[in-house]
């Protein structure tokens, strides 16, 4: 049977193939990636797009949690100061209600309570990074304005809206409680109770009742403060979750698109062996033919 007298083109094609395999393996080993262009593995390339989006979104959630955390922590510690101030007002009120104090002693106490009142106004007007934290969503103006004509001594100019923010897939968190709910709730109006205490101290009557009001407002506020404690806990928990999620995503990314170095190196070795064998074959193709023997 007659055979192809010139095997060189086939050998060259084989050389090209082994060279291509070597290049692919080297690229995988040097880049650590098995999916460099989408055609390397279309399915994995598409999943990698989603993986990158999820990772990037999780990173952003962590940044947003950082922003929210600052505000929540600030609000929480401010509410703690408010409680302390109210406790001081209560002890002053109890002292004044004793009945043994004269008018000038009460006036001295009243001055101190006035100090507490303005401290409370300033605490309720807490501003964090340019936003008033207890103003509902009307965050650009201080929510409490001193107003002598108001029965409580202040006017609330914020609103009663709240913000919620997405901080994960299927995880949204309310980030604020408006002052109208915290400090000016009907029946537990902190400013009203302090104003009542002040009036009592000035007139000498109804001090005990006012102390009762302040106590009730302080207890109410303590209950409200739980919101910020919860929020802070949830943020920390979400942070932990997101960090483990990012680790899982990185693992997935590596499984999808990372080069399997052991396999790549094995492939490279076998491709190199094949390449050398083919090179030897090409060199061997230059065999003498019958012409070489004709004298």
């Amino acid at each position, binding site marked *: *049977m*007659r*055979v*192809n*007298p*010139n095997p060189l*083109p*086939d050998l060259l*094609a084989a050389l090209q193939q082994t060279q291509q395999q070597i290049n692919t393996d080297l690229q995988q080993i040097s880049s650590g990636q098995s999916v*460099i*262009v*989408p*055609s*390397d*593995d*279309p*399915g994995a*390339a*598409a*999943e*990698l*797009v*989603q993986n*990158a*989006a999820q990772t*990037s*979104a999780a*990173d*952003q*959630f962590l*940044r*947003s949690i950082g*922003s*929210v955390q600052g505000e929540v922590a600030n609000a929480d510690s401010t509410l703690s100061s408010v409680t302390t101030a109210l406790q001081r007002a209560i002890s002053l009120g109890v002292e004044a209600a004793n009945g043994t104090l004269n008018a000038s002693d009460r006036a001295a106490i009243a001055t101190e309570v006035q100090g507490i009142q303005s401290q409370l106004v300033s605490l309720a007007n807490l501003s964090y*990074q*340019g*936003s*008033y934290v207890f*103003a*509902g*969503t*009307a*965050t*650009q103006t201080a929510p409490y304005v001193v107003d002598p004509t108001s029965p409580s001594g202040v006017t609330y100019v914020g*609103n009663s*809206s709240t*913000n*919620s*923010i*997405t901080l994960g*897939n299927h995880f*949204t968190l309310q980030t604020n409680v408006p002052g109208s709910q915290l400090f000016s709730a009907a029946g537990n109006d902190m400013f009203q109770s302090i104003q009542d205490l002040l009036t009592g101290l000035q007139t000498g009557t109804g001090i005990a009742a006012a102390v009762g009001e302040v106590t009730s407002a302080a207890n109410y506020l303590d209950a409200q403060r739980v919101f910020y404690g919860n929020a802070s806990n949830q943020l920390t928990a979400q942070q932990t979750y997101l960090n483990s999620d990012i680790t899982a995503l990185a693992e997935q990314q590596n499984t999808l698109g990372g080069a399997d170095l052991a396999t790549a190196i094995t492939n490279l070795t076998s491709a190199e062996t094949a390449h050398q064998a083919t090179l030897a074959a090409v060199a061997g193709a230059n065999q003498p*033919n*019958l*012409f070489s023997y*004709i004298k």
Partner: protein
Amino acid sequence: MSSLNASLAIALSGLTAEQGALEVTTNNVANVNTPGYSRQVPNLVSSDPIVIDPLTLGTGVTLQSIESIRDPILESSIQQETQTQGQLNAQVAALQQTQVNFTTSTSDIGTEITNFFNSINQLSASPADLSVRQGVLTAAGNLASSFNTTANNLTQQQTSLDQNVVQTVGQINQLSQQIAQLNGQINHLESDGESAGSFVDQRQQAIDQLSSLVNVSVIPSNNSLILTTANGTPLVLGTQSFQLQTQPNAAGLHEVYAGGTNITSLITSGQLGGTLQVRDQQIPAIQAELDTLAAGLANAVNGVQAAGYDLNGKLGTNLFNPPPAGGTGAAASLSVAITDPALIAASSDGTSGSNGNAEAMYALSTQAGIDGQTPTDYYSGIVFNVGNDVSNATAEQSASTQVLQQLNDQRASISGVSLDQEAANMVQYQNAYAASAQVVTTINTMMYDVLQMNVLNG
């Protein structure tokens, strides 16, 4: 009656025939590396005998013809496979360029979509912060320009493929002209009863080249050949060639015409077929998907903008310039409509601290709003399609390469020049030549003997 002269003539015919045969061998050896060359064999036949009663005497040998060894069925399989190969080569080369646009980078569309939504999430955490708002505008601008860049790259690639189409049609015309000329030469030689082997080889080579450019059907007719493309459109009829023309269509892309008929959609294989397929089907399909994504995103974002309030407490206006109706060209023209960061409608109640509308905008990232998918899912679908196109075409290409290689091996085993064989032939012809020459010498001696005989008698 036999004669010495007759023997001398027979010996001479042997010398001539072996010389001719040696020439064929020499020619084969000389063409051992000529592409498309088919080995030739001398066709030696014994000359017509003469009858001198009661003897029938041979009159020597004649080199009747020189035959090129080829298998027409194999040639036609090679030509078919060359068409497929040409188509896949063009397709793979073009699509590999296309897919670079969809390789994950710091500024591909997928990354910019995520960055945009990330900036919205940041805005949701600090809705009144102007620098965060500026961040949203920047991300929106980057998103728009990533769409613009990708869409423009695709259009540019389409334009350069279009230039390929025009060039390829030029090459096709040149080759069909060449084939028509060769048809003439072959026809001329063969009608004179001569062998046109090397012209046939050249023609086959030209047909193979033509096959790599466009789908061709070969219909042999006596001593000549008819070549048709795309549904029977003639390219070569005997010695006449028909030129293909190109004319730009409304979109500025060139369509292929044969004798006034548009045959663009009928060209399915060869380099021209592959190029047309990428230019007219695959790239437009990707463009349409990008347009759907860009228009869907822009409209959805604008819709949410209109439902909320900006930092000034006014109802939101378009963040992106509205995409063209129907979406065609949306990716190329996507642009941000506002420059004042205060105009982003983050608020749902008109107060500057509200993030309700920013949340609604962020929710678009997980809503199945683009053709039933989220923006990222839709984009990853495009990446899959592009990658799949390339990987399928590459797989077909390597399969076709294998087939073609095998067919070429077969052709070489039939038509290729084997130096061993030629050397053996050469030795054979040389020996026969030497023998004939020896016969001449012997006859010469015999003639001399005869002449000597006369001298003695006289």
